């Protein structure tokens, strides 16, 4: 009953914790980058005209989305080992994460592609763009920009799911916690420290996702530059126009290249929760 929290016995272990956190981050990054690339391919393949390919991709997505990640890891690690394919735990964990996130990313990106208006694709066809350019410029880029929040929250969930890799003793943060708590018998403190580390990691991933999102989308870069330009020219012109009316306020924008209006963000994006 008279138990008090004592974190001092954990102090010597901090490099171990940091190493675990670093491995978690590394696993997540690899899984996200590879998984999204595969997910994009699957998202397009699912709406392919070849019915067999489309069905296979649909089955893959549904199978992964409706079974627990833990069972997937066990199936991959123990199952493949029993069939004679041995792989290190790190590889098995990352492979399971890639398979998992590819399915989720495919579903989310497909929702984004579906939300591209049919007329835009037809317009691109009329302009004589090749199929691949249509896919890249007209379908994929706006789709990813639109579903980017859903994608990043999926990445966060993936980072948390990587905790399950401790069950096949990949040496990431949770597995480190298990080791440390069996060393020090300070189980509660250990898990509180690890929870805090996961919180820091998730804030880090969120910031990273935000920064990357601001950088990779060309449309956002253009809008930001235009806004900067407009602000600067507004400062420059306003002193000369003391009676800046509603019409006068429009003048600074005339320097700016034509920009599409900011599309209204969708309230519900399929696949963001499940």
């Amino acid at each position: 009953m008279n138990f008090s929290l004592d974190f001092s016995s954990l102090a010597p272990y901090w490099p171990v914790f940091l190493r675990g956190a670093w491995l978690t981050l590394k696993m997540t990054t690899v899984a996200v980058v590879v998984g999204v690339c595969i997910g994009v391919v699957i998202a397009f393949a699912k709406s392919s005209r070849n019915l067999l390919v489309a069905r296979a991709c649909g089955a893959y997505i549904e199978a992964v989305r409706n079974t627990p990640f833990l069972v997937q890891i066990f199936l991959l690690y123990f199952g493949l080992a029993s069939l004679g394919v041995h792989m290190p735990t790190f590889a098995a964990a990352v492979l399971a994460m890639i398979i998992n996130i590819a399915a989720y990313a495919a579903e989310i990106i497909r929702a984004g592609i579906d939300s591209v208006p049919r007329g835009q694709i037809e317009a691109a066809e009329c302009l004589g763009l090749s199929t691949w350019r249509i896919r890249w410029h007209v379908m994929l880029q706006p789709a990813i920009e639109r579903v980017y929040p859903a994608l990043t929250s999926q990445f966060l969930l993936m980072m948390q799911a990587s905790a399950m890799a401790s069950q096949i003793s990949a040496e990431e943060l949770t597995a480190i916690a298990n080791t440390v708590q069996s060393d020090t018998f300070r189980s509660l403190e250990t898990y509180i420290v690890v929870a805090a580390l996961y919180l820091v990691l998730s804030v880090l991933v969120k910031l990273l996702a935000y920064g990357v999102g601001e950088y990779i989308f060309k449309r956002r870069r253009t809008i930001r530059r235009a806004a900067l330009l407009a602000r600067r020219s507004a400062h420059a012109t306003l002193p000369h126009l003391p009676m800046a009316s509603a019409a006068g306020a429009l003048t600074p924008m005339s320097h700016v290249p034509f920009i599409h209006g900011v599309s209204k963000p969708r309230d519900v994006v399929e696949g963001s929760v499940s």
Partner: protein
Amino acid sequence: MIGSFSWTHLWYLVDSIWWTVVLSLLAFVLGSIGGFGVMLARISTRTWLRNMALLYIECIQGIPLLILLFIVYFGLSVYGFALPALVAAGIAMMVYTSAYLGDIWRGCVEAMPKPQWEASECLSLTRWQTLRLVIIPQATRLSLPPTIGFLVQLIKMTSLASVIGFVELTRAGQIINNSIFQPFLVFTVVGTFYFLLCYPLSRWSASMERKLNVSNR
């Protein structure tokens, strides 16, 4: 080979589905109650309450469920409550669920048009009456697809309770695998059972979402 997969094993697995369902329902019902409270706090007029709820949601959503489970399981036992695994798992999953459902429902309530609040105020309804009679009946319809979607997530998450020794579907699969060592077969069967549980719910959620989304088709 020590033995092969038999009907006894299959029945053991089928039997353990029950416990997966029990844990999911327990977490869902308790988490709904908690989530409703979080949602109320999140749309409250008091700033400190809103911020507290926001902090709670951000913290819980940033921590993996596995760690939450460990904290509850070890934390409570350290203070002298020797809890059965079901209770520990139920509490941890309730905390987890309440944060997510609170956030989902807050989104649904805030998606209701602002004039509805103002109109109810003109009819001299109190804030609570507005919420109960006007907002929630409409928000419920909107919130059903994501809530069912989260329930699917929750059913899958119950597999984590195997880690603290609660015998549900995944744990039963591990036990059988330890005795006959045919992991490929055993975990495929376990995965199939989860799929049979989750897939109808996923389809239901998706079809409701499609019906609600008529305007965007």
